[in-house]
């Protein structure tokens, strides 16, 4: 790194770099304190004159497509994670770029997965300069150990849209994996042998990138119905044998946890929504596909049935558990960000009440509102929560990158944000004095539900009043923290982090919330 390191303390008290990968940054100013201005970014104007009149944009392979897009050193290449750990297209694109001999690419995936660990070799050989996108497993370790040439930039799903839209990141070439597409470039995720559900993560790239390539293993004659990506934004279509490993794209069935401790947490959360009066006719909630979240949905479904309550909409990560709510008439709609299992894929493909959404509609903070803040309650996880309700999802307690932010930060805007997690894992406390890496400000986190009791943020007197008289074990978070310390045998030692940042954590408005430090 040639860049001179300058740090500033942000409004959360965290030291963050002021220049990242050559670009000046705004340190986090507090929730709602940063006011954007100016115009949105836009791709260059194009003419139909430059595209085939018969709509056939096919080229023989990715190399041709990339060459035709004018690929050169230092460009920004984007991919998406709707195929999750089963994706083959991202590496295919990067390897094709390597064959063309380019260097110093900025790889801008919506998330990376362990199966893409070969990107490490492409960083070592100089093809990729650095990654801006979530990193975990081997890629996370490579970054945390300080081996990447640039700094990682971690953004939420909404933050990624914001960064593209605001012009913070300009995508030169977007390569979109499509489970179904036509030769014009219309593309859909809910059909085909590699069906994954929604293609929402690729939508921003398709509208803002200079060039867009669609890669599919299920080419259908025009028109591809329905289309989630509009062919009018697409430059080239490439047909390949396989865009991914279906077994790793969606799980056959999602399983509820059988851990009694986790079931207890899930039941607490469902009971909390009932006792606090949040579970009422016309309400809405969001829950992901983690073991606790799935069990929560199952408990809540039974309570909704018992009380004769129906939701207006639920938001996923959809799974068979949300699909069951829809089929049982317990919700009018599923607004789906990504689809985790076969039941979810089948439902989104066949039920018009199961609707694909994008990070624009769901999460983008620099828009005229978004869905996340209209959700009554959201159930999330975290690696650590501190006694001020600040939470960490991106690193292990030891500072190594663990997983991406996903929609997590965006979801904090919900009416009631609930973190459902064990109070310690093995001997590692989860309820701590101070989080290692700040990912979510405590003022937005309302409830922390653990197997040892439920803590309500003192800022939410309304919630404390609402559950007054409930049989739930409501306790101050300091109490749970003290109990965990007693069980674990004292406070854990603080991890020894290096003095060099290896990545930054962006807040939903594009300001810098925290830095991830080198761990050797």
């Amino acid at each position: 790194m040639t860049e001179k390191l300058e740090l500033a303390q942000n409004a959360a008290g965290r030291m963050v770099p002021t220049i990242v990968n050559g670009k000046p940054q705004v340190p986090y100013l507090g929730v709602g304190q940063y006011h954007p201005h100016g115009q949105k970014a836009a791709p260059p104007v194009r003419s139909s004159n430059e595209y085939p009149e018969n709509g056939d944009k096919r080229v023989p392979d990715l190399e041709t497509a990339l060459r035709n897009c004018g690929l050169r050193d230092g460009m920004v290449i984007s991919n998406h994670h709707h195929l999750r750990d089963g994706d083959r297209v991202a590496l295919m694109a990067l390897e094709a770029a390597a064959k063309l001999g380019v260097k110093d690419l900025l790889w801008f995936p919506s998330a990376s997965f362990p199966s893409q660990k070969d990107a490490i070799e492409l960083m070592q050989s100089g093809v990729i300069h650095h990654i801006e996108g979530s990193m975990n497993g081997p890629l996370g370790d490579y970054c945390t150990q300080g081996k990447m040439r640039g700094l990682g930039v971690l953004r939420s799903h909404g933050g990624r849209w914001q960064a593209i839209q605001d012009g913070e990141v300009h995508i030169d070439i977007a390569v979109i994996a499509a489970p179904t597409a036509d030769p014009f470039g219309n593309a859909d995720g809910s059909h085909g042998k590699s069906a994954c559900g929604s293609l929402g993560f690729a939508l921003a790239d398709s509208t803002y990138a200079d060039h867009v390539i669609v890669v599919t293993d299920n080419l259908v004659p025009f028109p591809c119905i329905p289309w989630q990506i509009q062919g009018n934004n697409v430059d080239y279509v490439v047909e390949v044998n396989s865009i991914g490993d279906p077994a790793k794209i969606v799980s056959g069935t999602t399983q509820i946890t059988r851990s009694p401790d986790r079931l207890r947490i899930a039941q607490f959360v469902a009971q909390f929504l009932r006792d606090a009066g949040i579970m009422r006719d016309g309400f809405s909630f969001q829950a992901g596909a983690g073991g606790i979240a799935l069990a929560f949905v199952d408990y809540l479904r039974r309570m909704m049935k018992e009380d004769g309550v129906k939701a207006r909409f639920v938001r996923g990560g959809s799974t068979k558990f949300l699909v069951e709510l829809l089929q049982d008439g317990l919700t009018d709609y599923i607004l789906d960000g990504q689809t985790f299992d076969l039941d979810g894929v089948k439902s989104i493909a066949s039920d018009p009440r199961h609707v694909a959404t994008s990070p624009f509609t769901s999460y983008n903070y620099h828009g005229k509102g978004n869905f996340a803040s209209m959700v009554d309650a959201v159930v999330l996880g975290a690696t650590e929560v501190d006694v001020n309700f600040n939470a960490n999802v991106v690193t292990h307690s030891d500072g190594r990158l663990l997983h991406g932010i996903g929609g997590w930060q965006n979801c904090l805007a919900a009416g009631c944000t609930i973190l459902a997690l064990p109070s310690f894992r093995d001997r590692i406390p989860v309820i701590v004095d101070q989080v290692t890496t700040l990912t979510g400000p405590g003022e937005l986190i309302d409830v922390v539900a653990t197997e040892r009791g439920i803590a309500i943020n003192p800022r939410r007197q309304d919630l404390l009043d609402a559950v007054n008289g409930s049989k739930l074990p409501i306790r101050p978070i300091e109490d749970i923290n003290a109990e965990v310390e007693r069980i674990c045998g004292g406070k854990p030692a603080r991890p020894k982090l290096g003095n060099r940042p290896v990545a930054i954590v962006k807040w939903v408005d594009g300001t810098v919330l925290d830095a991830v430090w080198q761990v050797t």
Partner: protein
Amino acid sequence: MSSLLHERPAEAGHYGKDIRSDLHVAIEPRPSGGLEIGLESRVGLYYGDSILGQTRNVLEILGVKHAKISIHDEGALPFVISARIETAIRRAGLGNGQKALPEPFPLPAPSARDRLRRSRLYLPGTEPKYFINAGLHEPDAIILDLEDSVHHAEKDAARILVRNTLRAVDFGACERMVRINQLPLGLQDLGEVIPEVPDLILIPKVEKPEQVAEVDRRITELKVAHKLDRPIWIMPILESALGIENAFAIALASSNVCALTIGIEDYTADLGVVKTTEGRESAYARTRIVNAAKAAGLQAIDSVFGDVADLDGLRRWGESSRALGFEGMGCIHPLQIRVIHEAFAPSQTEIDKALKIVAAFEDAQQKGLGVVSLGSKMIDPPVVERARKLVARAKQLGRA
């Protein structure tokens, strides 16, 4: 005086990628050279110094001055760490007879003879990962098991671990039970666990009243020696044809016996029959136990239901068990607890009827009437008595 002749390398505990909340300790005694401690820990970053400090402390208490110790830790909690190190030291022929006891957690209130014993959760005595959260699931009791769930080569390790668990772990409102081994091994178990005052001792495979008397004597001796004045109840487990035949005598063997229970797995094996989910083959034994227990004024407690996945089957078993006169049963998974509590709960109809009968009885008493009647029906005294018991139980459950 320690003799080098009896000292040998030894190990205790478990490690590996599938092991959680445990550790493995290997110790090599040596004549000189002081202590050399090696540590690899999954939580080393956070508690490495703490583990090393604790290790030195245990070695000092047990008087170990020269040895090489290597520890592989998988996130064990402090009470487990002490237990494993102490076990390795004893196995190595080292130590001064002292115990390395963990920080005590305050004892819960003493247990009443006739307290609710609907569910008791078995915890294998060498699986520390299950201990710390067991009380959260609110069974009426937990059982720290030293018998069938512990391999015979691990009996010493389990004994020390269970002792530390009784002392250090918060089990909430649960009654803290220990299942000791069959006699005579069970007497050694008592020596280790009684000083940490369990609330109840389960004696397995009891066939004769003398066995209960022997355990009772040993407990009394230990209570005197350690100046303990809390009750420690006894629940004999009858698991053979002979045990069932002697049920009443066993029930009367000590005034500390509070309940009789049955082990159906061993009982059916003893009869040479197949255990079924309907349980017809054990119907005689179970009703015999109920009868003997009631005749002696004790609780009758049923066996466990082994299929953890079959919660409907469990519910049916529990309901029929309650109908026979049992007041509770064992469980082997926390998910069984709620089902069992529901199965053993009197229904609201039963409670309402009992309340009416008790009210009618009290009304008759006030009016000096010899005969209690409810509507057009006469109520016999035993019916009144049953109703009073049911109302008392419902009050314990907060339902009347």
